[in-house]
């Protein structure tokens, strides 16, 4: 359903700055299970995000949203099920009837196609904003693309910092930046490898309320760029605004998914309704 929507909105002008205009970035999650000790946090998740789609995952804390996100770039290994990006399995190679676990180097290559933005930014505090952005393009092994030289990476880094409105703070260390600025640098860093997919793990949860919007605006801009976005957030107003699919998760399962219209105004499930009745009032005030 979202494919049609995406392709119509994907005018060249919207995606001007990136080369990610190609409709890549199909994410297929199939029957994924994951346990931490005795607690099963993902109980058979199946979800497809179309190339260039924007999926927003919402749900109470502890529902497995972040874990699901982290399985997509193999930061967490799944116990069962599989995840494929553009038809290629994440973390495994298919040979005959066997799945071979990939070596670290191969997994790194896959990860360079998937950018991730963390709740706590996780910027490298001993590197400047620009160095944070240029580090990966210089050293990460990329599938089918050469590593960038230092000068190329620098130009690209400044361009990306400009895109998030922080070109003039390129030489600042993360601790000299506000939370919102740090998160924007983190987004630039995630973009530096031209990923097909961007994962956002509660990108605004650690921010002061007045800083939330500057980050959400940057993400809104990305939603039009043709990159597939998967966003875990508690900002319901933003979710309604930017998503073409909203996924409601609870207790390790997908309870319900659909367009923002369907989920926010007409939820079918009781659990969805009771969750939104608790959170939606303050969130819509944005």
């Amino acid at each position, binding site marked *: 359903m979202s494919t049609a929507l995406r392709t119509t909105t994907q005018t060249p002008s919207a995606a001007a700055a990136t080369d990610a205009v190609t409709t890549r970035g199909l994410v297929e999650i199939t029957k994924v299970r994951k346990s931490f000790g005795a607690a099963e946090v993902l109980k058979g998740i199946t979800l497809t995000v179309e190339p260039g789609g924007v999926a927003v995952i919402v749900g109470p804390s502890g529902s497995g949203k972040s874990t699901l996100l982290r399985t997509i*770039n193999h*930061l967490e290994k799944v116990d069962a099920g599989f995840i494929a990006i553009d038809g290629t399995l994440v973390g495994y190679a298919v040979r005959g009837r066997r799945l071979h676990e990939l070596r*670290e*180097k191969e997994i*790194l*290559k896959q*990860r*360079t196609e*998937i*950018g*991730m933005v*963390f709740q*706590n930014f*996780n*910027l*490298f*505090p*001993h*590197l*400047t904003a620009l160095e944070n952005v240029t*580090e*990966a393009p210089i*050293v*990460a*092994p*990329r599938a089918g693309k050469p590593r960038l030289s230092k000068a190329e990476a620098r130009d690209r880094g400044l361009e990306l910092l400009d895109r998030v409105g922080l070109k003039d703070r390129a030489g600042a*260390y*993360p*601790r*000299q930046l506000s939370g919102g600025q740090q998160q924007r640098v983190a987004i630039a*860093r*995630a973009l530096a*490898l031209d990923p097909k997919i961007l994962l956002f793990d509660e990108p605004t949860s650690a921010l002061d309320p007045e800083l939330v919007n500057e980050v959400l605006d940057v993400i809104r801009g990305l939603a039009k760029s043709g990159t597939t976005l998967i966003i875990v957030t508690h900002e319901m107003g933003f979710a309604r605004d930017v998503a073409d699919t909203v996924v409601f998760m609870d207790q390790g399962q997908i309870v319900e998914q659909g367009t923002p219209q369907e989920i926010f105004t007409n939820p079918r499930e009781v659990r969805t309704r009771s969750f939104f009745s608790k959170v939606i009032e303050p969130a819509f005030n944005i």
Partner: protein
Amino acid sequence: MSSTATPVAQSAPEPASAGIESAPETPEVRAAGPAPAGETAPAGTVGSGSVGRKAATDYADYRLVPARHPWRWVGTAVVAVGVAGIAWSLATNPRWEWGVVAQWFTAQSIVNGLLETLKLTAISGALGFILGFILALMRLSASPLLVSVSWTFSWIFRSTPLLVQMLLWYNLGYLYEKITLGLPFTDVRFFEAQTTTLISQFAAAVLGLTLNQAAYSAEIIRGGILSVDQGQLEAATALGIPAWRRSTRIVLPQAMRAILPTAFNEVIGLVKGTSIVYVLAYSELFYTVQVIYNRTQQVLPLLLVATLWYVVITSVLSVFQYYIERHYSKGAVRTLPLTPLQKARKFLAVHTPAARESNQERGTR
């Protein structure tokens, strides 16, 4: 200056109520507060609580008097008297025999011993930290065998007195007559030598000090690595940065902040720890001093000679430590602290009479 002016400015609208005991001229201090802000900012921003009261006076021309700290002065005076007393007794008590100290301080045999001490420290320090780094990585690896070998190494070498280790290495020839290198359980030999010819005093000293140092530094480095936030590794992994680069570029520079103070403790300890090799009759600084005072009977002055050299080495190392720590603190603090040199320059810039005049003309402090 703005950092001291701001809190004063915020409390300015209320009548004088606090800080009387610490500063006799309180009203003047408080009154002068708004001056820096008052010139540019409108009165409303200085104290929002002043709505409805009469408009604030412009205190721009008032002189600012810093708060006085009488007890700080008392404490300083007491300590100064104590220090002066100690210095006086050191200088005037003839039994310290400073003349003898001066005579031996740069004697050829002492300098030779000093060089041996420095050589032992440098070699066993460097090798010890390299081996310690490897042991720390082993301890943090996923292989149970590597973990337990590393743990056992630290366990044994931290449990054995250094003196025992030293004598054990020196007397290795008693336990094993020959040292051979070859394929185990076969007759293939690449290398074979008499143990006693291999293990000289120097080799025994380096072996003992290195292995002991490695056991301790392994724990220091491991502690430093553990102190780095897990999110840093995750972020680096998510960006596809290769494992070796993750360690050297992301984790280690941040771990260094935790490692350095303790590591320098260890190195400084090692400088003096080398004196234990006197049991091998190895002529480093301390052994040389012993040999001399056994001959001349000038025990205290010669011990002073050795001590003064240890003080010199430690001082030099402390300077290195300061600048290395400062290097690794970039990004960890919002603004780097000033170096002593920069502090001195700043002090002169503010406190020389010429600087004072020009500052007063500009209306700043």
